[in-house]
């Protein structure tokens, strides 16, 4: 079975705006998928429904065996423990060190101290920030902060990593560094779904690309077939 399976998903906000119309989507395990489209096309809504920040109005969403559409509010944590989320604005705890920010996830699960230490150091090493473990987020550059956020998202070894414009606040070189980290994580077997505006990145990465427009999938490019010609 696919890792993500969406069937006839519709999302209408309370103010009457419909963000997603009757959407079907399958994403296989180990895939790297970009979701692109102009502002307001529904791409943020789409991934917010995947980690149950938003609930679909109708239709079914299955993520790693969990029926997300029917998930109760107090059970949301069960889904969140199976996936990692990375945002444009990093969402780090400013008053906790890099180590604490990453360790936080594991502490919540109640892991023993030495196990937490080993896992955190390993994942900080993977994103290349082992030497900054004791720094506070405000002492880091944007790219470094995003790498901390990625480390936090993957420290638990999730099957799925959801990235909401992770390079939106970063310059081109830093963005490519982040993409390299993501690529490495993907190679380790984690499925990645990433929303972005940056067609340059999409061009270079040569992955599956889903183009959204006005709440509908207008094009689903197979791996390597996407070529942005500029609008």
């Amino acid at each position, binding site marked *: 079975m696919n890792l993500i399976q969406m069937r006839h998903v519709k999302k209408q906000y309370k103010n009457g705006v419909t963000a997603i119309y009757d959407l079907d989507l399958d994403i296989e395990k180990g895939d790297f998928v970009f979701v692109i489209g102009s502002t307001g096309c529904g791409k943020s809504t789409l991934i917010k429904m995947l*980690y149950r920040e938003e609930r679909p109005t109708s239709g079914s969403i299955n993520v790693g065996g969990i029926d997300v559409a029917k998930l109760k*509010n*107090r059970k*949301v*944590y*069960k889904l*969140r*423990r199976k996936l990692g*989320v990375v945002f444009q604005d990093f*969402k*780090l*705890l400013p*008053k906790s060190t890099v180590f604490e920010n990453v360790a*936080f*996830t594991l*502490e*919540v*699960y*109640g892991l*023993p101290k030495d196990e937490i230490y080993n896992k955190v150091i390993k994942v900080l090493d993977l994103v290349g920030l082992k030497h900054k473990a004791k720094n506070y987020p405000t002492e880091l550059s944007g790219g470094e902060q995003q790498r901390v956020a990625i480390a*936090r998202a993957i420290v*638990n070894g999730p099957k799925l990593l959801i990235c909401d414009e992770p390079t939106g606040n970063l310059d081109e070189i830093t963005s490519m560094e982040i993409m390299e980290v993501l690529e490495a994580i993907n190679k380790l077997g984690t499925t990645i779904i990433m929303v972005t505006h940056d067609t340059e990145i999409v061009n270079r990465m040569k992955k599956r690309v889903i183009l959204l427009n006005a709440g509908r999938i207008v094009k689903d490019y197979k791996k390597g077939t996407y070529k942005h010609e500029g609008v």
Partner: protein
Amino acid sequence: MKAFRILGRNIRDSFKSVFRNFSLSLASISCITITLLVVAISIILSVNVNNFATLVEKDVTIVTFLDLDITEEEIKNVEQEINDIQGVESYEFQSKVDISKEMMDSSDVFKNIMEQWNQEDSPIQDTFLVKVENIDDIGKIAKKIEKIDKVSIVKYGQGMVEQLVTIFDVVKKISIGMVIALILVTAFLISNTIKITIFSRKREIEIMRLVGASNLNIKIPFIFEGLFLGLLGAIIPVIATTYGYVALYNSFDGQVFSPFIKLIEPEPFIYQVSGVLIVIGMLVGMFGSYRAVRKHLKI
């Protein structure tokens, strides 16, 4: 094991967060301190007023005068009958000889007059001093005593005692009502202050949810934090109560205005009040945090 580990971390984190958000914590702590001080003062006042009222009520005595020609045998009978009345706490017999002696000792004028009396024409009567368990029953008991054979007059300050009882009753009710109202206001004030401080940590809660903390995982550290804030806020009121009340007690010499109005002994009273303050602080702090976090969990 796992649950203990999580609990331990929760306590550690909540302790840390009191200091990491120090300015906000300080706002909550000072709010708790000030309100608990007011609560402490009102508790001390109300308990003292209650105590005073109880003491006065206990002091009210029914004086039972017996007939002049009463015999030893009949006195025994009266005593037995008083003893049988329900609601009588204690009684004391004073013979006319005792009373005359007491009066003669107290003043020379009395002595001069009373020395001229002989046993037969002395107007002094044997008496029973009766105390009742519950002052509300004093009228009824006095009437029962009055009906006993060979009892001539019964006096307990009729009219005045009833008024006193009514007034004390009102004072007691008002003072207890005020303490309860104050505690409720405190709870509301503190929980609102904590709510504001937690509002600024909405992001923290959002991140906790994001990385897979269950609602309980999120609530517990905040509840412990509220508990710590309450404890810290109770420190100054407790110190003020302990030292302040002792100082007050000593400076008044244990009584206010007259020996009639006695203050409660500082020990163990101050410890009881301190205990109450600490418990109120902790409970209100926990409740405030809980209420504030709940809002952000969309339950």
